[in-house]
Each structure stands twice: as structure tokens, then as C-alpha cells.
């Protein structure tokens, strides 16, 4: 349950720094980045650098999972990938 008007700080101020983590922006997404099975990712880490939301996980110097909680589906990762290993798929396909 979201707070009622009496509980909110005046003027729309947000007092807890870093609270944007509470606001999962992944539900805006229309297209979802998916790794293509037939293309070998070279772990160049371009997607990791370019993702504006930090949704590409990195482990031991290699690209790991794509985390979808904050992924808005902008498609930058797919666009920047030099070997075209990421495909943007319609969200409806996952419902």
C-alpha cells in the first residue's frame, strides 16, 4: 500500500538517497534483450559499459546474466554488440 497524503513529505521531496532502486523500471519494457543461442558472445563487455541501467551482470571479467528488473528495453546493448549476439524480442512472447 502506497502512503496517503498525510504521510508524504511536502513538496514532493524524496528524503532517502538512493531510493531509485525501489522503483523498478523494468515494467516499462516493450522489447526484451535476449542472447542468441547461435552466436558466440566474445565477452568484449561493450554491453556492460553501454547499458544505461547497469542491467548486464559481469562475473570474473566475463559477461554474465542480463538482469531485467530495471531494463527498459532501450536496445542499446543489442545495437552496440559487435557480433550481434543480442536480439530484442517482443515482451508479449514471454507472457
Amino acid at each position: 500500500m502506497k502512503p496517503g497524503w498525510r504521510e508524504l513529505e511536502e513538496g514532493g521531496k524524496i528524503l532517502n538517497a538512493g531510493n531509485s532502486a525501489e522503483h523498478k523500471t523494468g515494467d516499462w519494457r516493450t522489447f526484451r534483450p535476449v542472447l542468441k543461442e547461435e552466436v558466440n558472445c566474445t565477452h568484449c563487455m561493450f554491453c556492460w559499459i553501454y547499458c544505461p541501467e547497469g542491467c548486464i551482470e559481469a562475473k570474473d571479467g566475463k559477461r554474465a546474466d542480463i538482469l531485467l528488473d530495471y531494463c527498459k528495453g532501450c536496445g542499446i546493448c543489442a545495437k552496440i554488440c559487435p557480433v550481434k549476439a543480442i536480439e530484442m524480442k517482443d515482451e508479449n512472447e514471454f507472457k
Partner: protein
Amino acid sequence: MKPKALTGSEAMANAFKQIDPDVVAAYPITPQTPVMHAYSKYHADGEVTGDLIRVESEHSAMSAAVGASAAGARVMTATAANGLALMWEIVYIASSMRLPMVMGIVNRALSGPINIHCDHSDSMGARDSGWMQIYAENNQEAYENTIFAMKLAEKTRIPMMSCMDGFITSHSVEGVNLFDDDKVKEYIGEHRPRYPLLDVDNPITQGPLDLFDYYFEHKRRQSEDMFQAKQVFKDTAKEFSEFFGKPMEEVEKYKTEDAEYIIVALSSTCGTAKEVIDNLREKGKKVGLLKIRLFRPFPSNEIREALQDARFVAVLDRSETFGGFGGPLFTEIRSAMYDTNVKIVDYIYGLGGREINMQMIEQVFCELESYETEEIKEYVKYLGVRE
């Protein structure tokens, strides 16, 4: 205390000087120019310590004021008419972000056709912007209201407009009793902003995106706090009166106690009306004036109490609503007086600086008296326009 001969603008600029805000951001526009002219001189002469930001437009003036206030500064600005219109977008943002600044408004007609003289169309247009508004009858009040406004704005964290009539008040010389600098300094005290942006140890966000799931709650809170500001006004006014020995009230009741016919007005017209009332009282007429000093938040209870025993009331509106039922003051007064037996009529007058003189006000009282025997045919009339 010896009065000084000052224009209304100089009186207001003296209030600015004595408050000595951290930041003043303003752009000149007739008839506000002399306020900023005088303040700029204080600044150039080192009589004030705050920063003066000379911006390229009123939109920038209000934007700079918002930024400075959010950062934690005590902020003032001033404008008039089209300048206020150009600020419009940011005027709402200042109040929505609950930034307690004071803006001097030297009331002037909005264009077009272009006109530099007094009416209240500028500040009445901003009546729903979430700012408090106080109106000055004369130079002394322009000075006192501005000092008071700073205190009230910071207590409520609601910005306030301190309004005076363009030219009639702003450019006319009257005797003004200025308080001692130290006394004003003591009264105003230190500014303690709530959650300033420059408090880097406690980082916060101001002005975030606020969509359908929070905006309504924030507006409801803003509305409630404006409503609560009525009581804060009362407490702060009492404090002001005790501190300076000067009255500060939402409304001034001038000979209304036994009055059958009452005029309601704002600003300099009240001075003219008082003179007419004194003359008519000598002739045995039971007439009075209700001067509205605080327009936002609207003191409906005080107005109702002051007018409820009158027979006929005339509201004088110095602005037009174009298609509304009467001027902005009239519609609110009628609403406050709903289900009483008082009959209320409206006169739109003085647009673009058109003169309102004693004969015209006497004519209004005559017309009110005539309704004892004649039916009211028109509830909204125009006073002083050529037919």
C-alpha cells in the same frame, strides 16, 4: 519615529534591504523597476550582503529564485504584469516545491492592448498558483507587508506575493515610518530551510517526476497546508503586532460594525473609500469598508463575520474574468456569504489604471441604498467605463 518621504517602491525596497536576503534575482519591468533600481543601488553601495542575480528574463528570475531557495537561501524577487506572466511556469513550481520566497508584485494591467498602469489582472491570474497573497493599501503597508510576508512564508514554507498598486502606490510619495534595521533583523531571524540541497551530509531529491500514483497526494497536502496557513497567519500577525506595535489582520473592518452598506475592496482604492465613508458618516449614512489585506489563503470566516449584518454589499474588482460571473473577489465573497441574507453586487472598475475617485465610490453607496426600494437588475456592473 520620524516618517520618511518615500514612494511605495522605495518603501518596499527598504523592506528588501532590511531583510537582506541571501539572493535576489529579478528583471526590471514597469512599474516594478524602481523597487529593483533602489535595491540594486543598496547592493552596489554595499548596504546589503546578499547576491543580486541580474537575469535575462522573468522566467530566469523565478528559475534562479527556485534554485537558490531549494539550495537553502533566503530569496526575494519582484515583478509586475507581463513579467509575472512570463514567470508563470516557474511560479507554480516554487509553491509546489514549498520554497518560502517573497515576491513583490507591483500590480499592473496585463497586455493587450499594452498598458503599464494599475489593475489586478496580473496577481489575480496567479490566485490559484499556490502562493499566498497580501495587498497593500498604501506605502506603509507595502513596507510592512513585505517584512511580514518573509516571516510568514518561511514559517509555512509557502511563497508569498506582496502586492501594491502600480504607480498609484509604487510611484507616489507618502510619509513612511521605517522600523530600525536591528529590529527588523531581530524579527526576521535566521533562515532555517527544511532539507536544503546544499546540506551534502543529508542528500535528498527535490522536484522529481511525480506521476499518477503520487501527484494527487502531493497536491492534497499542498492544499491542506495552505488551509492551515490561515491559522499560522493569525499567530504570525499577532506576533508582528506585538513586536512592531502595528496592526496586521486578514481584513480591516472600517466602520463596518453598524454599517448597512459595505464596500469590499483591495489595495489603494480602500484609502479613497475611507474618505468617502467619513464624509457620508457625517451625513448620517451607515456605510463601511471591508478591506481585504490577505487574499490567499482566502479569509472566508473573517469576511463572513464582518459582512453578515450588512444589508447590501458592493465588491469592487480591479480585474475581469471574461465570461465568469463577476470579478475574482466577487465570486469568492459571494461564495463565502452563501446562505446569508446579504445581497451582494459587483463593480468591475479601474482597468488599465482608469481612475477611481470619491464621486464614483459615493455613487456605489447611492446605488446600494437604492436597492432598498428598487430591484437589483444587474449583479455585475462596470464602474467608470464610457458607455
